[in-house]
């Protein structure tokens, strides 16, 4: 389970690990490099393959239930960045479509297992829902403006609850 004192990092790590796991065997994730946080310049300078980046979530909502239990709502940006001249545009489009489909389909999403280490505890063959992360919505943020005219960059926004 994600730790209450490390919400932001743990949620980000769970989503990143899930995408890393998909990159092991599933197209188009296997054609991409999955980065934790905004990619560093040494990565974006080369852009040898499309770079997927998973940014830290932003706390956007609090809800209180009986007994004082608090539910937190988060919004989180995941993007993909590629060099158009390398012919990676179809992979970028496939990633956005596939991620929207994957995150908005609870049946397949909550069956996908992965192994993650949070703090000192390792969770083997766990799922998103077992880690206490629930996807509420996924939104296509569209094309993002880039400084380099050859770059192509798109983002999706995940709305999560923990």
């Amino acid at each position, binding site marked *: 389970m994600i730790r209450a004192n490390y919400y932001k990092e743990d949620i980000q790590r769970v989503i990143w690990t899930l995408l890393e796991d998909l990159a092991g065997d599933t197209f188009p994730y296997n054609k991409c490099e999955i980065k934790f946080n*905004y990619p560093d*310049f040494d990565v974006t300078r080369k852009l040898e393959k499309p770079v997927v980046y998973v940014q830290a979530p*932003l706390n*956007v909502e609090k809800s209180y239930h009986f007994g004082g239990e608090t539910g937190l709502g988060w919004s989180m940006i995941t993007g993909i960045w590629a060099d158009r001249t390398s012919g990676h545009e179809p992979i970028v489009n496939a990633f956005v479509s596939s991620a929207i489909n994957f995150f908005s389909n609870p049946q397949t999403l909550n069956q996908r297992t992965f192994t993650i280490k949070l703090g000192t505890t390792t969770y083997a063959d766990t799922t998103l829902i077992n880690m206490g992360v629930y996807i509420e919505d996924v939104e296509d943020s569209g094309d993002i*403006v880039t400084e380099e005219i050859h770059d192509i960059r798109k983002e999706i926004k995940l709305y999560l609850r923990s």
Partner: protein
Amino acid sequence: MNHVEVDISGLQRKLKEAQKINDKMVPALVDWGANKLYAEVKRYVSGPYNPTGVGPGTGGVPIPRVSKRLFNSIKIEKKSKTEKWVISKGSIAPHNVFVHEGTRRMMARRFIADPVEIMRQPILKHIEDEIKKELQKL
């Protein structure tokens, strides 16, 4: 033909009062929400003056600044009585979009999108509560 209207249930009076709330209170609440958001966006871009342009950590807010242009570019634009936008004017800070979305060399610092996400729930809740309070008085 003459006729007499009798508002037995008080519904007509209540509808007129509700219309007054809509006409006067909603624009005032929209103003309040826009000002709240504006203040939050300003806070985001009011980082310490940093003449070298080399930021102390790109992930932290407020954004370190080389000039006041980004700070001064934040404006409230009135679209209608009940619609106001908080914007960054490109004519004042042409680099605003690259600070907001990031570049190959610089991490994105979403100085408008992040405050919108953070302030959305408290602003909408306040507006809803205030309108409910007035409607209950009817």
